[in-house]
Structure formats: C-alpha cells, structure tokens
C-alpha cells in the first residue's frame, strides 16, 4: 500500500500536503481502493471557507456515496476541474493527478490532530 511519508492523514482517509501557506487535499490509495471505480465527484467552489473536519465534497463510485472532509480549516483556492470529466484519475493516481482541492490554511497547529504516514499505516492495520 502506497503511503507517502511527506503527507498528513485523517481517520477518514484524506491526505494533505503542505507547501508554505497552501495545502493540497486528496483521498488515499486505501480510500480509492475501498470505493472502487469512481464515477462522480462534487467539489466546493473557489473562495469557499471551510472548517477543519467539515464536509467539503462527495465522491461516488459505482456502488457507494462517500463524503470527504477537510483535514484543516481554510479557504479553497483551486479545484481539480479535470475530475469532472475524468473522476477515474482518483483511482489511477490518488496522490498525484487525482488531487481534489487546494486550500490556503492559517492554523498550522491543526496538523497536530492529523496522523503522519507511520501513524496512518498503523491505523490502517487496526481498521
């Protein structure tokens, strides 16, 4: 199972990567595998302000509907529009071209409530 070690993870299987004040959010390899073929994505609009752990979108596979939640609070600065026509990118490359949104975040302290890759790996094993 691919679990990049430079990311932070949530218990709901989102990942977040930090670059300065910006962060990219997606779902993990494990999450896309559990969902199966992803066929629909609903994401927020740019400039929407969201709280940590607030629901920000929906990902649907053939069989399942799954909400996605914000790993940190922030303002949406970019949305991966490619996913509207090619939601399967999340299956193919969940940590790369299958990213969901970019956010500008303020409180680095919120990262303390997330898991690093070692903790996430242990979390998956327990689940």
């Amino acid at each position, binding site marked *: 199972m691919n679990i990049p070690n430079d990311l932070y993870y949530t218990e709901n299987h989102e990942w977040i990567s930090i670059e300065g004040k910006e962060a990219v959010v997606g779902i993990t390899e494990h999450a896309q595998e559990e969902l199966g*073929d992803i066929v*629909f994505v609903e994401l927020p609009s740019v400039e929407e302000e969201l709280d940590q752990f607030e629901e920000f979108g929906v990902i649907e596979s053939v069989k399942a509907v799954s909400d996605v939640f914000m790993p940190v609070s922030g303002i949406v600065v970019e949305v991966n529009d490619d996913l509207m026509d090619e939601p399967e990118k999340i299956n193919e490359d969940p940590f790369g071209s299958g990213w969901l949104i970019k956010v500008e975040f303020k409180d680095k302290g919120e990262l303390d409530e997330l898991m690093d890759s070692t903790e996430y790996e242990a979390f998956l094993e327990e689940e």
Partner: protein
Amino acid sequence: MKKTALYDAHLDLDAKIIDFGGWEMPVQYSSIIEEHKAVRNQAGIFDVSHMGEIMISGKQAKDLVQRLITNNAAKLTKGQIVYTPICYEDGGIVDDLLVYKLDIDKFLLVVNASNTTKDLRWVKKNAEVFEDVKVEDKTDYYSLIALQGPISREIINPLLEDDISDLKFYNFINTNIAGVEAIVSRTGYTGELGFEIYLDSENAVEVWEALIEEGKDKGLKPAGLGARDTLRLEKALCLYGNDIDESTNPLEAGLGWTVKFDKDGFNGKEKLEQIKEEGIQKKLVGFIMSERGIPRHGYEIVIDNEVVGEVTSGSYSPTLDENIGMAYIDKEYVKKDTEIKIRIRKREVKARIVETPFI
C-alpha cells in the same frame, strides 16, 4: 453469515466480499466497470449460489404453483421455465422468481436470497390446503453458477455432454458439465446470451474452475454482485427490495405481462383485477440524467416543486457512459421525454424519462 461453496475460490481471485442478504458474497474482483464490460463484450462468470431453491413435488405440485404465481405454469412442458411474481392477496409482491418444470409433478422455484426464508414460510402456508404436495428447501444443496455474455455458449459447450446450441431462452436440460450432473438453463439477469448452472454444491468448485480455464483465453472474467446490478439495471430488470416489494404490485412495476387474469384462483387475482379496472396510481419508469449527478435508491422526484415519485434504482451506466435510474412516478406525469428533477442532496438535478430497456 453464510458462505457459498465457492467462497475460497473468490478469495483466491482477490474478490472484495460484502454481506448480501446474510451471505458473504463477492461484490467485485477487479473493477465493476471492467467486469460489466466483459459481460457485454465477451463473458463473465458469477457465483449466485445465495439464491434460494424451493422444490415443490407431489400430485398437487402444479396446483400449488398455480395458486402461488401470477403467471401461468399450466402450459410448461418438462424443461421449460417461467418468470413470475408471487403476490399476497392485496396484490403486493412477495417475491419475483423463476419456476422450473423438472417433471410432471416436480417444480423448482428459484427465489431471491434475501427472501428465501419468507418465501418458504409463504409457500408452506399455501401448501396447507393441498393434500399431496411436498415443499423442500434445496438452497444448501444447489450451487448456482451464471455464465453470461455473447461468447458464453462457446465457453460452456466444450464442457457439456449434450450440445446446447439449440437450447432456447427460458429452457433447460439435465446434462453433465465437466463430468458432473447439472441443470443447465438458458437464463440470466444481464440481458445477454447466458446460462445458469445448478449443481450439487460438492461439485461447485470443480465446475467453476473448469469454466474459468475454458474461458480464460477468450476474455472471460469473474464478475461480482456489483456488475450484476449495473448489468440488470441497463436492461431495466427489476430488483426485489429496490424496484419491487410488498408495497408495490406487478401492474405498476411494468410486470403486467406476467399476470394472467384468464387463469383461475391465484393469490392476489381479485385485488389485481380491481387495480387494473381502476387504473394504477404510479408507474415504474426509466430515466437518464441530463445534468451531473447519480440517482440512488430513495431519492425524491420533483416536478414544479412537487414530489411526484421516488428513485428505486440508479447508477452510472458503463455501456452508455451516462447516469441512469428507475423510479415510481405518479401516473399523470409518465410520458416519454418528460423532464423531471431528482433531489440529490441539496440540489435538484434534471433528468428525462426514457423508454426501457436503456440499451
């Protein structure tokens, strides 16, 4: 939780297992979309051993069957099958099933897994007034393998003792497959050419493996319940628990062709006659989304801010690359090309009524 005889074979194939009606069943192996496309273009092999089998035998077996079903089994000859709902007196659907005429006084009912216990109780209750009839649950005895897809005949034929090139839709034969006794019927739930193989559970693994071996270079794929659902939806075949249940009747479900009013005394006949005379209130229709969104079971249908129906089944359609669904809609709005809206979460998303099957 119950397991089919093929459970370990599914694990070997890396299947994702889910609970379905109390059974641990494979929902997918590789990908629902890939499996779906394999069935439409080549072939897929399904374990549907969770389906229930109820044997009715004895001199009055036919009379009991005729009382239970809305369709007519009187004209069946040995080797023929009929699809039918069975109804309560109020016209509500107990289950939809297949009746196999095994012999002059022997019928096999093949029922939905989630209804097996309920159906058995219902059949036994109806059997009380008949003297010479025996009702047996054969669910554990029979394993059921479905081989579906345009090349399914090429895959199954070399393994059979008898040639089935002339076997007609809804007919079966007793034969040997891979050296094992089986009932092979030309039936299925995908809308493709296909066969269903009933065999002693002890032999299930052997036959499953022989079929996979025979089909592996021809594009045969193991397919799970996920693909089974998208395949049947594209052909607008009803799924019990989704599109039909005890609160719906065959007439509004578009199954009027299975209700034979010229047949004497079957459960629900009087009520269904009355409904037919007065006219149905709602009707099961198919629709395609015109805007982005996937319809799901239970979502509301809206026209002019008024709720006029409810989605019963919905999914992404791999063949059409569109999102499709079925819904009960108030009779007055049922017309091809009518624009409807589906309430998906907080939005109302446009769709249009289409003729079914979808493909």
